[in-house]
């Protein structure tokens, strides 16, 4: 199905049109020199030498396209673009092309019963984030200064096309999607991948010993956290077996063994109970382990600098949460819901002029 018109004047062949458009300046017809009018105006007859010289001149001024001959043809020369007289032919050409593409695509999708799309279907479309070229890049492409209004016009059309691309892709019409995609790709920025990947967490790699190295920050404190899984104690053969008990000969019932591994948390090489005397700081640090359910699974070594007790304990907790996520990505959902993977953005508010502190005002005096 021929969705889009043949791309004779399309943007793919733009360079050709551009050359055609720019290399020849516009000369008003009144100023054009015609040999016929020269004689018609009653100019004195030229001798043959002059005529030859003039003819030679005319031949020199032959242009590449044989269709167009400003000097010989009586008709006015047709500009290549229909939007020639706007002065921004390339820009309006592209606008028109995009609008045509949109209308054609819309018609196609309507015929395929994909438009208008119900609300729930819009939500189910595959997300395709787009990053268009910057106004500066578009300026060089369209040869006009891309003001904000022009840029918005172009991007509005492109966004609409992108929506149709999403519909076509999600519905599975690959050829439609491909055609739309070919138009859209011309206007997409080359830095799209980098832009969309901004802010995405880099996955933390475990080193040769299985340790994770993460950072945590809170207020003005920064913590470097190393976490390594606790090695379960090697059970020796026969250590748990009591012969008397096995044969039912002992009268004292043995208490069940407590087989748990415990996490050791060292902060600046001191045990957590020694470094943080306040229970609230200790609980803040142990909270990520508790929520992820990995108490006793990892040993933690931290170096923390800067700030006070709350900042340091918050930084350590942040680092531990990231470390747990590095070791076990499945805990990501629950840690995120508990806002433990988030760097707490709250910082000390600055003092303002006219106020005693950040918010505190001076005593109000009536007079």
């Amino acid at each position, binding site marked *: 199905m021929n969705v889009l018109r043949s791309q004779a004047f399309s943007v793919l062949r733009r360079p050709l049109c551009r050359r055609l458009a720019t290399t020849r300046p516009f000369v008003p017809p009144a100023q054009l020199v015609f040999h016929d009018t020269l004689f018609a105006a009653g100019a004195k007859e030229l001798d043959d030498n002059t005529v030859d010289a003039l003819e030679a001149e005319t031949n020199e001024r032959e242009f590449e396209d044989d269709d167009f001959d400003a000097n010989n043809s009586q008709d006015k020369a047709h500009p290549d673009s229909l939007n020639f007289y706007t002065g921004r032919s390339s820009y309006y050409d592209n606008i028109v092309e995009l609008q045509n593409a949109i209308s054609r695509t819309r018609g196609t999708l309507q015929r395929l019963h994909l438009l208008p799309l119900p609300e729930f279907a819009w939500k189910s479309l595959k997300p395709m984030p787009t990053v268009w070229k910057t106004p500066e890049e578009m300026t060089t492409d369209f040869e006009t200064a891309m003001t904000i209004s022009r840029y918005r016009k172009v991007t509005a059309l492109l966004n609409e096309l992108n929506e149709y691309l999403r519909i076509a892709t999600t519905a599975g019409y690959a050829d439609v999607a491909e055609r739309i995609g070919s138009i859209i790709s011309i206007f997409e920025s080359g830095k799209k991948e980098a832009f969309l990947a901004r802010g995405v967490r880099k996955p933390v790699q475990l080193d040769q010993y299985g340790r994770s190295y993460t950072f945590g920050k809170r207020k003005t404190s920064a913590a470097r956290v190393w976490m390594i899984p606790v090695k379960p104690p090697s059970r020796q053969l026969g250590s748990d077996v009591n012969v008397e008990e096995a044969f039912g000969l002992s009268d*004292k019932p*043995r*208490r069940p*063994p*407590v087989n*748990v591994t*415990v*996490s*050791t*948390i060292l902060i600046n090489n001191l*045990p*957590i*109970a*020694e470094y943080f005397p306040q*229970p609230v700081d*200790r*609980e803040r*640090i*142990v909270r990520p*382990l*508790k929520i992820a*359910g990995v*108490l*006793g699974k990892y040993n933690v070594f931290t170096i923390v600098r800067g700030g006070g007790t709350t900042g340091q304990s918050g930084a350590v907790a942040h680092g531990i949460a990231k470390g747990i996520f590095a070791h076990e990505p499945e805990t990501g959902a629950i840690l995120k819901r508990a806002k433990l993977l988030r760097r707490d953005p709250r910082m000390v508010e600055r003092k303002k002029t006219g106020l005693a502190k950040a918010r505190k005002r001076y005593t109000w005096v009536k007079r």
Partner: protein
Amino acid sequence: MALSLSRVPFHRSLPQGTLICVRTYANSPPGQQSPFRIQNVKNTGTSKNKKAFSRKNRIGAFRSMTPSSLTVPVLQPSPNSSLSSVPSFKPELMTENMIGQVVAFSQTPNDPIKYFGTPKNMLLEFRLLSKRCSVIRNITVFTAEELDSAAAEPSHKTRYVLTGPSGCGKSFLLLQSVQYCLAKGWIVIYIPRAKTTVNSTTTHTYDLRTQTYLQPNYAQQTLRRILEVNSANLETLTLREGLNYDRRSFSSGTTLAQLASAGSKDAVISSVVLETLLNELSRQSKIPVLLAVDDFQAIYNQKTAYRDPHFSAIRPYHLAIPRFILEFASGKRSFPKGAILGALTAMDPAFPVTNELIDELNLPGLHPRSPYSKRSKILQEYARGLMNLPVPEEFSPREAASVFETWMRDNALSAPGNDELFLAKYTESAGNPKAFVWQGILGTLEGAAPVVNQNTPWPQLREGRIVVQ
């Protein structure tokens, strides 16, 4: 105990011995009786001890109510919450496979906890628990074995000092040793707060004969305590030579119990009686003697809080009670059979652990030390030969689990007692016993998740309640 501002005196029936104080909050105008009177409402037949609730005798904020006054359902003990299944402390339980077992100190007629007393933190903990419990650790078993081998040797061969960081269980271990030796038939002299001998809270008088400062009241108290706890053993021992002092005479053959009871009634002769008693105990080799001193570092501080008439600080070896402790601890005096045990208090700014003890016991000091730091030669002499018995600074998971279970069964937990809470508190306290119990179990604000009653007709009034199991 209830405080009330009403003018009307209470007529409710009260358990025996309860004292209700109505505080005077309003100052009456001069010349008039105050509108609020301090009323002491007492039942008939109660003791006339007005000092029981006085400010001086109040220790800490924990004073348990009598079971009959617990009328609120939350405070009612649940049927299966008692600690009745906790076994009593017995010397036979000091074995390897009992490590991690919680045992209770039962109320005996010569209960050392009652008569000698305990350090303050331990007292508060025993008040909170329904029974006075402690857990058997591997260091307990080790100490019991050492004491067994010391029972046949002179005391100058077994002079241990229990050391470790703050809250690691030194005082508890000392109490366990006291109970162990008492149950094994030793004579036990336990001084739970040795800093009271050097902080100028008891009278001191200079004695020309001995050229030391005697502490008669303290000696009297000590004699009374020794007598109450060791009366059976002291009955079997007698004076070898007669004693004549201050118009009192004790013939040879007087039992040490009679001697001690005479000294405990009269402060004038108490110091001499105590000295004589100790001399007798140092001569007899029938019954081993344990001298257990908590706050051991207090007597090794060069300057006590006592002042002489020239207002210079009196040295501990010039005071009678610290002197005899120092002499036994250094081995200058010795029981033919027995041991000396001391426990340091790591965090006491008034009486820190001094350089002499740090050097002798090879402890990591808090402050940088050099060979030029101040040390007292006399105290170094008194510290010679002391052996360091380091107490492990963390509970093993099994011991911690037993302690946790004990507090859980005693309804001390505000949160559901599951392994997550146990592991969280163990991790937070890094196994340190004091931090685990006081800041972990008792000091946590974590509680059960609130349960919302969905049957409330108005959603705006719906609130979550924490159901206490």
